[in-house]
């Protein structure tokens, strides 16, 4: 029997050798990005000169992402791999880092200075990875991407640099516009309650109080007292809306709405926020700028006493 197993393994080895010989593909640079946000960033700088594949599609929680055979092939064939970094990709980031020994692998968060990151004072090595909610921080990742792409395609370097500057300016304009939009909400109403703690950068950048029902880890469910405290907080501050996220279950936030109702405080679900994933490709929310605009429109229209026209969130 042992002999047969040996034969089977040798046969497999041969089959594997012949089937998988890949030749380096000519043509556009193959780039793989982990999240949709990173893919969109790269696409904006590189335009048509490359082909970008995002591993995590619309509505996928990075926590629950499972790699497929196709994803492996994409990673193997990629010329450059971009990922978010700061442990957003969990254990996958470790694999990507190791892959960096034989391929160009870049974490876009690299370009952001340490001091700008939000950290739990007790655990300096574990910063909050949700950097894309502060548009000005996300704008700082543009250079990292442009530099990497320029190195890979030197003949396109000037185009990349130009596009990077344009896109960065576009993002900085967006940052100012978001700031203005959020400032239309009266200070006392500027409190945002979401299902999981993804919006801390947003809160810091745009002067909003942010409360999450769940910690950053999906396992850290809030205790009963946290729930009661949160309900009391909502009632005391007369908060009008809570938000659900496209990539996190609605159930937890529903329990808060129910809790408030029992205390005689009507609270509505302000709408869907895009947190860890963007909207469907092709839809307005399917790119980073559209996603930020949609989030801000949702927040402003739910928390502002005066109805705001969404169209005023200008380009």
């Amino acid at each position, binding site marked *: *029997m042992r002999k047969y*197993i040996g034969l*089977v*393994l040798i046969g*497999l*080895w041969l*089959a*594997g*050798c012949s*089937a*998988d010989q890949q030749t380096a593909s000519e043509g556009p640079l193959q780039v793989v990005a982990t999240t949709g946000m990173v893919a969109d960033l790269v696409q904006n700088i590189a335009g048509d000169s490359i082909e970008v594949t995002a591993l995590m599609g619309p509505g996928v929680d990075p*926590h629950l992402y*499972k*790699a*497929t*055979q*196709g*994803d*492996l*092939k994409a*990673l*193997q064939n990629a010329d450059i791999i971009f990922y978010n970094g700061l*442990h*957003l990709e*969990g*254990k*996958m980031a*470790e*694999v*990507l880092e*190791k*892959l960096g*020994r*034989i391929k160009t692998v870049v974490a876009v968060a690299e370009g952001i200075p340490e001091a700008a990151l939000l950290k*739990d004072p*007790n*655990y*300096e*090595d*574990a910063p*909050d*990875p949700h950097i894309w909610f502060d548009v000005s921080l996300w704008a700082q990742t543009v250079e990292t991407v442009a530099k990497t792409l320029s190195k890979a395609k030197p003949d396109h370097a000037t185009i990349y640099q130009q596009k990077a500057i344009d896109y960065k300016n576009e993002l900085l304009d967006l940052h100012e516009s978001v700031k203005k939009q959020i400032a239309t909400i009266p200070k006392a109403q500027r409190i945002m309650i979401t299902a999981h*703690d993804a919006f801390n950068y947003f809160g810091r950048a745009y002067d909003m109080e942010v409360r999450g029902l769940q*910690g*950053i*880890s*999906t*396992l*850290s*469910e*809030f*205790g009963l007292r946290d729930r009661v405290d949160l309900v009391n907080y909502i009632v005391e501050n007369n908060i009008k809306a809570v938000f659900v996220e496209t990539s996190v279950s609605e159930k937890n936030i529903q329990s808060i709405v129910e809790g408030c109702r029992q205390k005689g405080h009507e609270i509505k679900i302000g709408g869907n926020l895009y947190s860890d994933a963007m909207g469907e490709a092709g839809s307005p929310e399917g790119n980073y700028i559209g996603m930020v605009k949609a989030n801000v429109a949702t927040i402003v229209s739910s928390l502002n006493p005066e109805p705001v026209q969404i169209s005023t969130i200008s380009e």
Partner: protein
Amino acid sequence: MDAFYIILTASLFSISCGLLGSFLILRKMAMVGDAISHAVLPGIVIAFLMTGTRDSFDMIVGAAMLGVFTTFLIEFFHKRARLQTDAAIGVTFTWLFALGIILISLYAGQVDLDQECVLYGEIAYVPLDLWITQTGLIMGPKAIYVALFILLVNIGFLMIGYRNLYMTTFDPAFAASIGISVSLWNYLLMGAVSMTTVAAFDSVGAILVVALFVVPPATAYLLSHQLKTMMWLTVGFSIFISIVGYYLAVAIDGSIAGAIVTIAGILFAVVFLFAPGQGIFRSKTKQTQDATIEPNLFERENLT
């Protein structure tokens, strides 16, 4: 080469798990792998609180310690509190998992920490995690070497301990009367199980490991009540499901672990329906003859 690397890694781990699983099934402890997958959580949290990092190495050390502790607790509850093994497993792992959750909410609520993102690997990434020597020589995927090492340790352990494990599994009282320490061999087996589980979690992820401990040996058990034959069949099934599962994943562009376990389940169903001795579609006369076979009435094999 990707296909070969993935199939080889899956086969090596699944043989390790299947061989140990054969004993676990006969000892009514098949779900020990699942128990460990949950019970390692406090180990991960404690390792993080002590080191402040989420590096794989620290996480594996923390997980391995809890793995051994889990199997120790299960044995302890089973022996001292005279609990059935399934109840002992249930009490132990739910308690440890809960402890882990409490530790996270108390000390690490702002840190992304759970088995899924710090411990469980993904079999699809096996070809990406290469072992590169200091001179820059690429030696192939690291997971293959880990899997091979674990398999050799397990085979060594089973070859040395086969007779004693056999005796303590089928007739503990008799084993004790001829001077074999039943507890010692239990702990040794559980130690091997913890080591294999944690190493396999890191390389190929949890679903696959939990299933590999149970499904291939259970399928083999349908076909043979001779322990040695059962173990050989397990080896064959393990390789078969790894190959077919991988190509199913390629065909549907899905999760490789998911596809391998699916194939294992289908194989079990086919054997269950058509097995010559035990299958649903066997002859009536045979049915009455076989009905009395119980694991503890295994024929004595020629012990070598």
